[in-house]
């Protein structure tokens, strides 16, 4: 899908699976697999640390992440200003992948919920962006909302680490950005809200989108994390903005990808305000 403009982003979809296979920003192609998974939460009696349930305070998955669906039903909406792929993975996971004319990013507008409560464990839903970048166990998060902090998988800078929780132990707060670097290449995911995120394999970024934990973790809330609205489980909707480019000023607009990310983050996190007014029945010529 392309609007044939130099600055436009592009995406490619596999028509057989409905999944994204490639994105293009800054006129650079990046092979990308994006899918949704969920972790099953640990269930315990909370009497010992090892029996602590996954809950509001504790992210404690049991086992590997489970893929939500192998394929997505999809429809294509192509237009002059915006083009979209509407993907439906199952009854409670869907997404719109979107590119705007003259904009140099790809938007993933995800919609999760109501999460089914058909098992004892609860579900913690993530999205995973898998690339071929060789990130060598390193990723970066802007955990304090300001500077980027270097994170190394299964590593702490001041002690020898033996992780008991391979997924949760590598999760970090993401205030607005998580990224990978490989040489001069940089792949960044900007979030519209604070989320937890990690890179559990080289070239991968994952972000936690929504959770339904059916057991309290005994840290004081005294309530399982099962929120409802309109007598149904909560639905969460949000966006990720993906940018790929060079860390030097060799991108088509002469800016580094970090500069582009900063401008994009300002545009999205401090977005222009929209106000509406009645024209009190006037036609355009009268109003003018």
């Amino acid at each position, binding site marked *: 899908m392309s609007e044939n403009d130099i600055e436009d982003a592009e995406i490619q979809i596999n028509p057989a699976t409905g999944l994204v296979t490639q994105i293009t920003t800054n006129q650079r192609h990046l092979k990308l697999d994006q899918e949704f998974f969920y972790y099953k939460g640990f269930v315990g009696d909370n009497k010992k640390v090892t029996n602590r349930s996954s809950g509001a305070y504790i992210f404690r998955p049991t086992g590997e992440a489970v893929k939500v669906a192998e394929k997505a039903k999809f429809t294509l909406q192509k*237009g002059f200003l915006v083009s979209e792929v509407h993907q439906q993975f199952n009854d409670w996971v869907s997404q719109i992948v979107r590119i705007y004319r003259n904009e140099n990013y790809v938007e993933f507008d995800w919609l999760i919920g109501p999460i089914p409560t058909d098992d004892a464990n609860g579900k913690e839903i993530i999205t995973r962006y898998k690339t071929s970048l060789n990130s060598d166990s390193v990723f970066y998060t802007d955990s304090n909302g300001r500077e980027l902090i270097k994170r190394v998988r299964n590593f702490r800078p001041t002690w020898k680490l033996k992780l008991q929780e391979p997924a949760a132990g590598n999760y970090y707060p993401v205030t607005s950005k998580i990224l990978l670097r490989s040489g001069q290449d940089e792949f960044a995911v900007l979030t519209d809200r604070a989320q937890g995120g990690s890179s559990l394999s080289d070239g991968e970024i994952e972000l936690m989108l929504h959770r339904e934990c059916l057991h309290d973790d005994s840290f004081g809330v005294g309530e399982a994390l099962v929120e409802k609205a309109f*007598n149904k489980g909560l639905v969460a*909707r949000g966006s990720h903005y993906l940018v790929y480019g060079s860390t030097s000023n060799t991108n088509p607009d002469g800016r580094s990808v970090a500069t582009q990310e900063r401008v994009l983050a300002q545009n999205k996190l401090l977005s222009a305000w*929209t106000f*509406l*007014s009645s024209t009190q029945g006037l036609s355009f010529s009268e109003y003018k």
Partner: protein
Amino acid sequence: RVDLNVLRGAMGVMQHHDAVTGTEKEHVAQDYTRILSQGLDECEIITNEALRQLSSTTDQQRVDPEPSVVLNFTTCRLLNVSQCEFTETQDTFVVTIYNPLSRLVTKFVRLPVQKSNYTVHDPNGDLIPSQLIPIAEPILKIPGRQSEAVLELVFQAKDISPLGFKSYFVQKSAEKVPTQEE
């Protein structure tokens, strides 16, 4: 300042209690939502007044002796579920985009609307490109969504000055609605 205090108080309470992370009981979270909503209501008074002052012409600037239209500004807080009673029910309306940043900004505006055709004029009176795009099926089914909107009207608010605003005139047109194939 009085109009800002409710939201200030709400933010203070929520930051102190780590709200919206799920680490409060559900009915407390719902109460935070209520307090935040009240805060935003109060803030709307001050933004409305500020925009009215900024957008009104003074007597010296007026070349037209007719009284001008006084605009009241409102916001749509349910755009996250693609719902807005105002844009869905009005045949004509004005969209004002305010840029809170200290540099030029271009924004794609998305507004839920009912099935029809629309024209959009920019502040110079020029017709600008706009697009209607279907709202994705799962969004239409979000529990609690009460909306007849099945489309979103998209247009580009270009080059809004730092701390400035632009207003766009949106009008339903009588033309036939194109089918998906068209």
